[in-house]
């Protein structure tokens, strides 16, 4: 089977995948940061610095998506990952799937 590859599509797809993965990592960082703040171990200045760093990362990712026109690709990868996570990490969903079979 011959696979035809369009260079622009490849660039968009690959970049979209990378950005989507960085977004997943960013989401994990945000939740970790929230837990650290809620634990009360951080001072106000550290809290502000952490928040600003994550805000900068968020802004950078948004810029990359805008400049490369990959918002839809990233969304599609993220939605796909959410769906997979929902199936594998959600016991209620397992029960539903079992009922169907």
């Amino acid at each position, binding site marked *: 089977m011959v696979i035809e590859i369009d260079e622009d599509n490849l660039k968009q797809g690959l970049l979209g995948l990378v950005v989507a993965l960085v977004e997943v990592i960013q989401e994990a960082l945000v939740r970790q940061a929230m837990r650290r703040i809620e634990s009360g171990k951080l001072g106000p200045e550290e809290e502000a610095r952490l*928040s600003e760093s994550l*805000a*900068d990362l968020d802004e950078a990712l948004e810029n990359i998506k805008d400049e490369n026109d990959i918002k839809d690709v990233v969304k599609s990868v993220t939605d796909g990952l959410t769906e997979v996570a929902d199936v594998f990490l959600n016991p209620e969903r397992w029960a539903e799937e079992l009922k169907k079979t």
Partner: protein
Amino acid sequence: MTETEVTQEGLHKEGRYIYCIVNGHEKFAVRNAGLDNADVYLVSYEDIGAILHACPAKPYESKEENKVKEWLFNHNNIIDKASDTFGTVLPFSFDSIIKGDDDAVVDWLNKGYEELKKELDRLKDKAEYSVQIFCEPEKLADRIMAQDSTIADLKEKIEKMPKRTAYLLHRKFELKMKDASHAIMVKLAEEYASLLMKHVEEIKTVKVHHVPEQFKDKKLIVSFSCLVLKDNVKTLGGTLGTINDLQGYAIRFTGPWAPFSFTKIGEI
């Protein structure tokens, strides 16, 4: 492939595409209105019948989206026509084909008669309606914040901070709103279901794949498929009207449809 299978295949070159099962045996024939302009007619057994057209015994398949849409339109159109003539019908899903000729259909109706007749009687004078309840997102947010002061306080705090410094609090606010919004929608859906239960025979929560443009700026709280007795449609409409009149709410009420979501036919 074994020799027997080849022979079996040969036996069933012919097929019948089934649209629905009806109560009654009045004459029913619609020329050129089925899939690919097929002539649609009724094959009856005792006092029930199948609305169908003759076709090869293989599924309708096409890679062209418009072709499939056209087939689906034809399929539903025939079901509507049959419902006009016979009252409530048992609708079949797209691409239900019986192998064999009209006699094979009669055999099949004979075999499934009791179950089909029971189901036709159960659904008599009832139709399916779709109810979608929408709310303006701001209205929902106001309601959440009125119920949970910690979320309202968080919002106030964020508004007083520089945007970047408030990033994490803003994300926390979004997560809390998402959870609260989910909880309130589950509660509202239960409330509406019990409110509508008074006017319907059966109710099901369903997923919605398409929301019309006029509701796009609103949040879908819940979508129901309801099995409704014809005599109760007005009172159901009245109750939905009172919800629709609430500020910030909107209802999409469509039907009557053939009872696709409520027809229970096992293996016949």
